[in-house]
């Protein structure tokens, strides 16, 4: 992709001692993280832990209060062509005067000054992106009339139009039913494989991405833990992270994190050092 960075060319995101504080409140401190191209990182944590804010830092919308961040080898800045962004699936207004393809077309340098005329080459790219998410049949319908899943597929197409090497996703599955979640997940995963893109995926539930996540970043109350899902999703590690009794249960294929379990099943002292216990096969 014409990446002129040497040595670090497969490094999509690097955070070194990254700290973010709002006044008295510390979202996270001394966060160290390297995300390479082709890797899938799930970012988890309770509400208000700073998951979305982490994305905003990487998008260049929020400055760090300490440490450094690099995205595709450079400090975060708005309009970075290497970065694709898929927001929460908040629905478009019903009577919004735009078709699905207009939303996708915004991904073709929609931030540049001028009139939004697309040349034949760009139009072919837009058509290609629409086809790649299976949206050809409804791309010309008013976007506000489409279902949540259809709208989110168009947002994926918009984000992928610029062929980003880093894909930042902010709970893109929320408000979608399970079938639609699988479709959208499949599109993101397909792109990661074909383009060797790094995916940073903020989610409140590990389960839809459990099979895909190479690594997990878990943020809680200023603290963080990172590792493979098997390393992070243990009763010991999460109890230490939360500073209280937390139980990780495996129910069938699903992982369930129970917080505030009244201590009854908490076998480990929260302060006890944890052991890496990779259980997942």
């Amino acid at each position, binding site marked *: 992709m014409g990446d002129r960075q040497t040595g670090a060319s497969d490094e999509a995101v690097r955070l070194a001692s990254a700290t973010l504080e709002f006044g008295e409140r510390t979202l996270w401190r001394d966060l160290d993280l390297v995300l390479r191209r082709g890797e899938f990182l799930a970012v988890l944590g309770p509400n208000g832990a700073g998951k979305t804010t982490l994305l905003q830092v990487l*998008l*260049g*919308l929020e400055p760090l209060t300490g440490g450094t961040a690099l995205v595709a080898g450079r400090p975060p*800045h*708005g*309009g*970075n062509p290497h970065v694709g*962004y898929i*927001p*929460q699936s*908040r629905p*478009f207004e019903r*009577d*919004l*005067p*735009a*078709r699905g393809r*207009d*939303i996708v077309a*915004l991904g073709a*340098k*929609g*931030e*540049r*000054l*001028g*009139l*939004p*005329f697309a040349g034949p080459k760009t139009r072919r790219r837009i058509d290609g992106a629409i086809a*790649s*998410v*299976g949206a050809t*049949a*409804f791309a*010309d*319908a*008013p*976007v506000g*009339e*489409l*279902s949540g899943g*259809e709208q989110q*597929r168009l*947002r994926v197409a*918009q*984000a992928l139009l610029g062929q980003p090497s880093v894909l*930042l996703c902010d709970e893109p599955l929320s408000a979608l039913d399970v079938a639609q979640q699988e*479709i959208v997940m*499949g*599109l993101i995963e*397909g792109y990661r494989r074909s383009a060797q893109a790094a995916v940073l995926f903020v989610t409140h539930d590990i389960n839809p991405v459990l099979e895909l996540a190479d690594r997990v970043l878990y943020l809680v109350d200023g603290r963080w833990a990172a590792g493979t899902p098997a390393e992070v999703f243990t009763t010991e590690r999460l109890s230490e992270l939360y500073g209280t009794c937390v139980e990780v249960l495996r129910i069938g294929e699903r992982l369930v994190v129970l917080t505030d379990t009244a201590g009854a099943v908490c076998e480990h002292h929260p302060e006890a050092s944890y052991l890496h216990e990779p259980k997942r096969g």
Partner: protein
Amino acid sequence: MGYLQYPFAQHALVAAALVAITCGLIGPFVVMRNMGFAVHGTSELAFTGAAAGLLLADNAVLGAYIGSLVVAGLIGVMGVSDRERDSTIGVILAAGLGLGVLLLSFYQGFAAAATNILFGDIFGVSDRQLLLLSAIGLGVAVTMVLIYRPLLFASLDPEVARGRGVRTRLLGVVFLFVLALTVAGAAQIVGTLLVLSLAITPAASAQRLSSSPLVVAGLSIVFALVAADGGLFASLVVGTIKPSVFVAGISFAFYLVSRLIGPALTTRRRRPPSPVEA
């Protein structure tokens, strides 16, 4: 028909055309961004500015421009967020309109001047003022062409736009000023009370006919042009009725027709969702 040979009529038609183009350009964004009340607010305060201009310098046009810019500044400073905006505008509008009435009560000049501000009097506008009107209209059109794409991004999908580096807040303020200048210009033709007939109705009609932003923009400009110049022309022919009556009438007719035929044009585009091929 003979009227068209007179320079005053030609100048008025040209100025009206420029104002209409700017109205047609900003209209879809006014609708997209739910800023109808902002249009109404700035035009009411263009009235206050015009009254002040009349009283202090005998120049209602300049006063209207200054008044609307002050209002845009106030709205920009006091609250651009959607929730805040409407209440801010309501507060400023009420206070400003009261001030305008007070100013007019001090005015000792030509009695029709007040109604001319409210209902428009393009044929009474001097050539120098028409030049000002046209120059500002041109400036607004150029600005709109420049910021069109990011403004569209920010209006359709603000969250992603921010993520992609669009400075949505700055654009919002710029648009507020562009809107204020457009509104003050339109007020010269249809009056401050009927500005919405050029700033909203054409765009609202266009939206009934298409979902493509570019088609909507094009139709909105055409509707505004036909309404503005058609209205002026009709008023020239009839003579005793103000142009604003015809402008508002033509504009509303476009809207009625669009509402009638719109559903047939747009629902057909909605096809049933298909299963994914991927």
